[in-house]
Each structure stands twice: as structure tokens, then as C-alpha cells.
């Protein structure tokens, strides 16, 4: 089985390639990248894809999604979640363990991977619980979980409130080569809050979550990473202070990486005005100053990855009073154009944007992919940078309709997504 993707602008930050190339795929693997037309002999019996005028990148990786299966299939399933991923240009996602039951034991991890194989869209990399039941108390059997397929640990959705437990987790993880992902939130500061503490929350009369709730937790966990020597990844960075703390830690040589989400560099807490629950997530949307700082953090590499924190919810959890509404928004099908907007506005180079969605998350999670190197699995995304489209959440592949971007015009879209050389998304079809 041969495929040739012709005449695309091939951009692979991992290989430092940005050139017009033909991409050759054979038996699900990358065979070669060659000058346009130079492999026509080989391609005589290959399926040809014309990528003229399009961008060809390694398959995008979203290192932070919630697939909700097992247990909350009314919100999302592995089939619908990975279909949304493929539609958004993602060939792989890392799914968080706050399922029901929690992914803190081998049987759940294996179940997730089995469902992922059956679903047939994007690759699924399970992130397992940092502590049993996400309770922030006891360590999980990480060795067993790694054998089952775990790529990282996190209590995402809930902070590990006890600093002593976090210290022991990071220490114990040194036995394994398993990255720790911190949901950084000091619960005594965030408790009861529904949006960013600030003038918009005051105006709306809604209890606030101060930036310091995130920043004090990040500071704590970075100090513990330094103390234990175990690498730490900070999830969903949303404030200027957080970016500053991470930047200093990196400068000091501490092994820390970080991600942010498109909504944090696109929207402010003003998006909540009118009690719009589709703009309610945790951490919350912040201020223009924070948006600028998050953009600057991506630009200078303080923030390594763009991840969506894709968090589908049912309408019954969102069409309610603002303070009762669930936290979280869907993101898989809008992440790429929102990140490309940073390129158009001069914040990121195109290579920087692609790296934040490919090789950087792959390196943090130590998973295959993120590159078009010869012999690697043929996970490829073909992007039309100029394509304009209007977000219509009713057409989403995800079951979640909870997006603050509904009705907005986006520029840029994945027109084809290939996983292991198989088309899992094809807008031309």
C-alpha cells in the first residue's frame, strides 16, 4: 500500500525541514521525503494526494483531552472523541484519567486502549492517575500501569492538595521514566469560584478564582520537581504569573515543561459576560494581560505545547445557572485554526506553532510521532492555511457542544488526517 502526497509545503520542526516535497508512504510508514516529481517511478502504483498549496506536517498531537470513556459516554466516547481529534487534524491524543471508574488501575487502561483500537481514528495515549481515585492520598501501581500502556501520570481535574503527597509521587516516579503532569491549583484559594477573580466577576456577582490559586500551586510543584529531580509538566497554564514562574524555573535548569490551551491565548474573562457557561472552564479565562503573557510564553518557548483540555459536557450540565455549570469546553475541532492565528498575528513562527502541536508534546510524553522521519509511522496532517470556515457546533464530531467559538469564522483547517497511512479524516471526500 503506497501513498504519495505531492507538492505540499512539508514542515517538520523535528527534522528542521520546511520545503516543497513529495512525501512517500508505504505500508503505514514514512518511506521518504523527496524533491517534487523525483519519485514518480516509485509512485506509479501509489495513491496520489495533491497537496499543492497546502501544508504537510507531522500528525498533530493533543496531550490533554478528556474522552470520558469509561463511565460518562453521554458526554463523549473514545470513538467520538478520536473522530473529533481526526477532524481537527490530530493523529494522537493523551486522555486524562478522570473517568468513571478512574484510570488508576490496569484494567481501565487496557479497556481504554481496546476501545481506541476498535474506534479506529486517532491514537490514544492514556494518562493514568497520579493518586488512587484522584484522591490525592495514595500512590498508584505505576509499574503495572506502564506495562498496560500509561504514558504519564496526572490527577488532572483535581489538584494534589497535600504537598507531602506530591513530593512522594515525584520521588517514587524516579523508579520509572514516567512524566508527571500537574493540575496546578491551590484548592483553598479556588474553592467556590466559578470564573477568574477580577472586575468581570465582580460585575457579574460571581465568585472568583484568583490567579494566585494557580501560581502558588505551580511554584510549589516546581520546587518539588527541583527537590526530587523528577521532570514535571504543568498543565493548562493560564496566568501571566505562571508563565513568569515557569520561565524562571527553566532558566534555573529545573526539568519543567508546560502547556497552554487555545482559549487562554484567545479569550478573556469578558467572554463569560451574559453568564455564558460555554466560557466557563478551570482554570478560568483571565485578563488581557494574561493573554499577552501566555502568547509571549509560547513565543519564547516557556510554554512548550498547545493542548486543548478538550472537556465535553452534556447540555444538561451547561444549560444551567452559571455557578452550577460544569467547568470545561471542547477544543479538538478548533485548536488548529486558533493556533494558526498566532502565526498570522506574528506571535509564533509557523514552525513554532507546528512544533507546539507535534514534536514538543511527543518529546514531553516520550511517545512516538511528532516527526516525518523515515521509518516512523505515517501520521500526517494536511492543512489548508487559507481555508475559511464558520464554527457550527452542531456539526462537531465530538458529542460536546460546549464551545465559546460557535458561529465564529476560523481560518485554517485540516483537510486530511492520516494515522499509520490510513485516512481518518478527509474533507475532500
Amino acid at each position, binding site marked *: 500500500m503506497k501513498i504519495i502526497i505531492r507538492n505540499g509545503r512539508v514542515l517538520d520542526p523535528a527534522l528542521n525541514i520546511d520545503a516543497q516535497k513529495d512525501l512517500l508512504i508505504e505500508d503505514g510508514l514514512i518511506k521518504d521525503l523527496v524533491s517534487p516529481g523525483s519519485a514518480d517511478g516509485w509512485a506509479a502504483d501509489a495513491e496520489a494526494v495533491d497537496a499543492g498549496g497546502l501544508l504537510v506536517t507531522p500528525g498533530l498531537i493533543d496531550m490533554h483531552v478528556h474522552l470520558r470513556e469509561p463511565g460518562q459516554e453521554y458526554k463523549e466516547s473514545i470513538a467520538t472523541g478520536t473522530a473529533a481529534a481526526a477532524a481537527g487534524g490530530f493523529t494522537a491524543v493523551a486522555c486524562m484519567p478522570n473517568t468513571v471508574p478512574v484510570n488508576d488501575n490496569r484494567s481501565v487502561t487496557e479497556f481504554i486502549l481496546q476501545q481506541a483500537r476498535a474506534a479506529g481514528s486517532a491514537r490514544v495515549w492514556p494518562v493514568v492517575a497520579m493518586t488512587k481515585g484522584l484522591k490525592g492520598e495514595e500512590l498508584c501501581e505505576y509499574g503495572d500501569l506502564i506495562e498496560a500502556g500509561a504514558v504519564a501520570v496526572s490527577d488532572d481535574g483535581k489538584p494534589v492538595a497535600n504537598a507531602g503527597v506530591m513530593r512522594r509521587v515525584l520521588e517514587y516516579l524516579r523508579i520509572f521514566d514516567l512524566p508527571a503532569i500537574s493540575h496546578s491549583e491551590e484548592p483553598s484559594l479556588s474553592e467556590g469560584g466559578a470564573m477568574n*477573580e*477580577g*472586575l*468581570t*466577576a*465582580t*460585575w*457579574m*456577582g*460571581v*465568585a*472568583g478564582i484568583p490567579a494566585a490559586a494557580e501560581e502558588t500551586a505551580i511554584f510549589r510543584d516546581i520546587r518539588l520537581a527541583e527537590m526530587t529531580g523528577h521532570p514535571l509538566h504543568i498543565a493548562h497554564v493560564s496566568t501571566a504569573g505562571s508563565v513568569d514562574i515557569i520561565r524562571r524555573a527553566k532558566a534555573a535548569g529545573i526539568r519543567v515543561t508546560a502547556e497552554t490551551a487555545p482559549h487562554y491565548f484567545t479569550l478573556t474573562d469578558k467572554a463569560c459576560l*451574559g*453568564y455564558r457557561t460555554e466560557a466557563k472552564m478551570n482554570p478560568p479565562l483571565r485578563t488581557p494581560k494574561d493573554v499577552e503573557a501566555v502568547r509571549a510564553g509560547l513565543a519564547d518557548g516557556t510554554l512548550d505545547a498547545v493542548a486543548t483540555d478538550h472537556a465535553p459536557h452534556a447540555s*444538561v450540565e451547561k*444549560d*444551567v*445557572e*452559571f*455557578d*452550577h455549570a460544569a467547568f470545561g469546553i471542547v477544543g479538538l475541532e478548533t485548536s488548529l485554526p486558533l493556533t494558526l492565528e498566532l502565526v498570522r498575528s506574528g506571535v509564533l513562527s509557523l514552525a513554532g506553532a507546528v512544533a507546539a502541536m507535534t514534536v514538543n508534546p511527543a518529546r514531553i510524553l516520550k511517545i512516538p510521532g511528532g516527526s516525518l522521519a523515515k521509518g516512523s509511522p505515517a501520521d500526517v496532517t494536511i492543512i489548508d492555511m487559507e481555508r475559511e470556515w464558520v464554527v457550527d457546533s452542531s456539526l462537531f464530531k465530538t458529542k460536546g457542544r460546549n464551545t465559546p467559538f460557535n458561529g465564529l469564522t476560523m481560518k485554517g483547517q485540516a483537510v486530511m488526517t492520516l494515522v499509520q497511512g490510513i485516512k481518518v479524516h478527509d474533507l475532500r471526500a
Partner: protein
Amino acid sequence: MLNRKDLLGLESVSAEEINLILDTAENFKEISQREIKKVPTLRGKTVILFFHEASTRTRTSFEVAAKRLSADTFNLSAGTSSMVKGETLIDTGKTIQAMNPDAIVIRHASSGAAHLLASHVKASVLNAGDGWHAHPTQALLDMLTMREHKGRLAGLKVAIVGDITHSRVARSNMIGLRTMGAEVRVAGPPTMLPPGLEQYGAKVYQHMEPAVEGADVIMMLRLQLERQKSGLFSGVREYSRLYGLNTQKIKLAAPDVIVMHPGPINRGVEIAADVADGPYSVILNQVNNGVAVRMALLYLLIGGGQTE
């Protein structure tokens, strides 16, 4: 008539509209003085009083107002509604709407609840207090009381003292008074002053004395005593000393100052008993004006159009 379906807050209510409401309320006050305290103005109209949060004063005030205008009123409270069975606010709203009421008065613990309801029903929605966000009828009755005693609102120095963070009364008054050209000062411990108060055009004080200095109106807010547990104040004794209104602090204000309180009052906590009962107090005028303002709002929102 007001050219709007709902009254959810005072953010988008103009000075002209506020004047119309206050003038109408002033006219309606006379009805409550009659021997037969009833006019047929809203005969055949249905008003649902949907109180999802306990309230005696505001609910009674609305009910009295509606009945004096001959509207039919029905009470629906959280304890008796199917919301205790897990029904969503939108579903409850649609159910109420199916009974074709003309107005729904809603009190709810969640900020924005009145907005949510209003966007799902055809009936006029009157916000009787949503979370910490707004209590527009309270602010209007407060403004009516101030106007009655001072003859104007523009230029009045109004000090609002207490827990601003959790106060929908303070928010609605700050917005309404700014629209009417009053000078608003707010004072309270820093733990009860939320960020961004400057957006209301209010001057913010952490001490009570400079806020009440020369004030024409002092509005005291009720202290929720349970907030001591969450560390918002150290105790009633110190709170009362720093932020309680007593005869000493009144001397700092204008000689003809009026003292207001949305009630219910904590005697001896935010307001000394002799002040609450004293010559400066207009607290019972507020209650009286509450009925008039709510009559005016019901009339202006649902009284128009149809004649028999």
C-alpha cells in the same frame, strides 16, 4: 410604559426610565393609604412569585404590590417545586410559561439566574435578587426613598458600608445611583471589597469614617455572621467598632443625613439600636416605598396595551 420585557438589573436602564419608575411609584403610594387598598389596573393579569431562595420581605412586598393592582399571584418556592427533584431552571421556566403568566418574579441564589430564565420565557421577568449580582427593585426603592427625603439624586453623597463583595443591593445601588448622577462611596474591610469596584464609578474606602464624612445618605449592609468562619472578619465586636454605624460616626455626616438599611438588620452589629430607631433612620420608609416601586414596575412592564 417601559419599553422592555424584563427588569433584570439596572445596567441598561436609563435615567429617563428610572425617573419614570420613581414618578409612577410616587403616584401609586396614595393607593396604599386608601381604605380600600386596591385598584383594578392589573385585573386578569397573572404574576408568579418564584422564590428559589428564602425571602419573606421581598416576596411579601411583591405580593402586596401585585394584589393592590388586582393581579392574581401564585407562589412557587424551591421547597415546593420540582427543582428539588432535579428539574433544571430552564425546564421549570418552560413549565411556568406553559401556564401563560404575564410576569414572573424570581429570587435565586445564583447570579445570572434571572437572565437565564428571561431568555427562555415570554413572560416579563422581574429580578427579585440573583446571587451577588443584582437586586434592582431594592435599588429603585432606595432611590425613591432618597429622592423623597432629599428632593434629588444628582450630586447626593451616598456611602454604602459593609460587605460589598456579597451584596447585590450594593451593586444595583452603585449602578443606579451613578446613572442618576449621585456620588457613591463604598466602605468595608478589604476582605469584603471585591476587585474592580472602580468600574462602578464608586470611591472605595477601607475605613468607614472618610466614607461617611459629609454624606447625605448612609446605607448600611447586613453582615452575614457566618462569614466570620471564612475569615472575612475577625468578630462581631471588632466589626461593629470599625464598620458599625453609631451616633458618633453619624456626626461626621451631613447634618440632615438619612440612614438606610435593606434589612433585616442586625441590631448592635452593623447598626446601633438607637440609630436604627432614631430620627435619621428611614428604614421603614424603604419598606413602604418597596411596595410602591414594585407596583410601578408591574404596571409599567405588564399593564400596557390591553384595555377592556
